[in-house]
């Protein structure tokens, strides 16, 4: 069953959105520059804009078909829409906002409020809550309307990085619990990589690529778009323990062990079993052998899966059990005789690793 099947053309003065796509994954990240048509795409799905031609299926239900003159109104499409600015109703309090779209037979509001950590603000007015809280209420409200699919339009853009990552960490268990497919727009690649199974790139009103992050890097148009915001490695790892003597946080993925600086995760790392680390491709050094007597803490062995040559650099996608992108120059590629399938060592400093830093978030802002 496909989550979404869209094939439509929307023409507006000076802008055309021409989309053909089929989405089957649970969480899809939609990425693209401003004005590319990402929000219009979601508006068409939700019935807030009407295309000139084509059709839209949501969970195999046809919601729009121009030739059949079928155009279900937004309230019949069962799309939970979380808007960029939350759009909470100012004349209702938090609880009334949450329950606005709630079906009578469901009594999930308490559970959702607990999961989103908004139980304490439930009787507050909308004007009394912070931006981060408002966005969590908006997510809860959309979830409680029992949608077939949840769409989030830049839900984190008004929030700072720490708050954003906190909300993402709350969203992940919700996605699992409710098992609702989700489309999320963000201009921040690292946010999308933390949340989504697949990416869809929209550029200039067209779908410029769809697939996993590492597949898309091999596609020229998608690669160009993603490079503009800076490529990043996003790796989910298990937290093993903290080595206080060495000041290191020990992480692992299967047999592969990785050290990060322990201060990165503040005081809250004990709460976490899994963390997502970020590493810039230019911070990864390649070597043909393990190097002793070197200050770099992380040296892991893998296999080159793909080599992508761009104008003046080469991106190596390396399989370490997880995928890792390393950026080298053309000269390095030639000198090291890098080729697909060859064994390689990836080296990166513990200090080069960035991580969700929940401990740094102001607690009053969150609760």
């Amino acid at each position, binding site marked *: 069953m496909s989550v979404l099947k869209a094939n439509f053309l929307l023409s507006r003065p000076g802008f055309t959105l021409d989309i053909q796509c089929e989405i089957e994954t649970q969480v899809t990240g939609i990425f693209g520059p401003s004005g590319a048509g990402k929000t219009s795409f979601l508006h068409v799905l939700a019935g807030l804009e009407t295309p000139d031609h084509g059709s839209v299926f949501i969970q195999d239900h046809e919601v729009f078909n121009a030739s059949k003159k079928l155009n279900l*109104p*937004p309230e019949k499409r069962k799309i939970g829409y979380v808007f960029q600015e939350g759009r909470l109703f100012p004349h209702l309090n938090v609880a009334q906002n949450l329950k*606005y*779209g709630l079906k009578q037979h469901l009594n999930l509001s308490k559970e959702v409020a607990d999961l989103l950590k908004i139980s304490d603000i439930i009787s507050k007015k909308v004007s009394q809550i912070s931006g981060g809280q408002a966005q969590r209420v908006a997510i809860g409200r959309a979830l409680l*309307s029992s949608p077939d699919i949840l769409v989030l339009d830049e839900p984190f853009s008004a929030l700072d990085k720490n708050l954003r990552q906190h909300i993402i960490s709350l969203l992940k268990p919700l996605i699992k619990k409710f098992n609702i497919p989700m489309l999320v727009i963000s201009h921040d690649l690292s946010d999308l990589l933390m949340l989504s199974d697949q990416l869809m790139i929209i550029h200039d009103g067209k779908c410029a690529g769809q697939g996993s992050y590492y597949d898309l890097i091999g596609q020229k148009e998608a690669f160009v778009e993603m490079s503009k915001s800076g490529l990043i490695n996003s790796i989910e790892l298990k937290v093993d323990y903290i080595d206080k003597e060495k000041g290191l946080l020990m992480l692992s993925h299967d047999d592969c062990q990785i050290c990060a600086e322990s201060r990165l995760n503040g005081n809250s790392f004990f709460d976490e079993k899994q963390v997502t680390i970020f590493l810039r491709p230019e911070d990864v050094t390649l070597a043909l052998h393990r190097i002793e007597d070197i200050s770099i803490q992380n040296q892991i062995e893998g296999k080159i899966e793909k080599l992508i040559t761009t104008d003046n650099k080469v991106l190596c996608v390396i399989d370490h059990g997880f995928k890792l992108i390393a950026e080298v120059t053309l000269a390095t590629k030639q000198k090291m005789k890098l080729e697909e399938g060859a064994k390689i060592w990836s080296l990166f400093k513990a200090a080069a690793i960035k991580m969700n830093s929940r401990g740094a978030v102001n607690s009053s802002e969150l609760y």
Partner: protein
Amino acid sequence: MELFDFTYKELQAIGLSIQVATICAVVSLPIAVGVGWLLARKSFRGKWFLDGFVQLPLVLPPVTIGYVLLVVFGVRGFIGKFLMEHFDIRISFTFWAAVLASIIVSFPLVVRAIKVAIEMVDIELESAARTLGAGPWKTFFTITVPLAFPGIFSGFILSFARCLGEFGATITFAGNIIGQTQTLPLAIYSAMEVPGGEMIAFRLAMVSIILSFMAMVGSEYLNRKLVKKS
């Protein structure tokens, strides 16, 4: 004291004025909300015409409005004749003529207040309600109306206050019949026409000023309270 010595006729005029103004404001409100919403939210062919037509009584001399109403609803007017012949209903020179004249004269004011109030409601909130499963009616009554309520309420009070002061269209279309169509302004006018009626005119003018002032101040007070609450 002569100042507070109201005669039965005067009290009748005051009562009639309040009655006409209340019915006028209550009847105008739902229609004005509908028209205001249409003008604020919908694009359609001839919108400019509807807008102009609704606003017309604002600039027309009230006597002209009364004359047009007489031509249309008078016993020889095309609607008035039909009502008379088929239902034995007469409108002109009755209480209902005073109400109709007041509605027409005050309608632009109410529509304008409500239209502006609805325009001020963020249309994106209405879209959000729709995506949460609310149909157009639920969205209108649970989002648009509560958020535009201070403006709608202002429109209601404006309509009431304007009706209290209505003169030209009423005297032309409803006449100046004591106990039936003689409202406060008409009673003041009649008193001024009669030698020695200055005190009556003064008394009624005072009542007229107090009533209008109370309506406007009350509206402003409630409006501020509502805005603060929301």
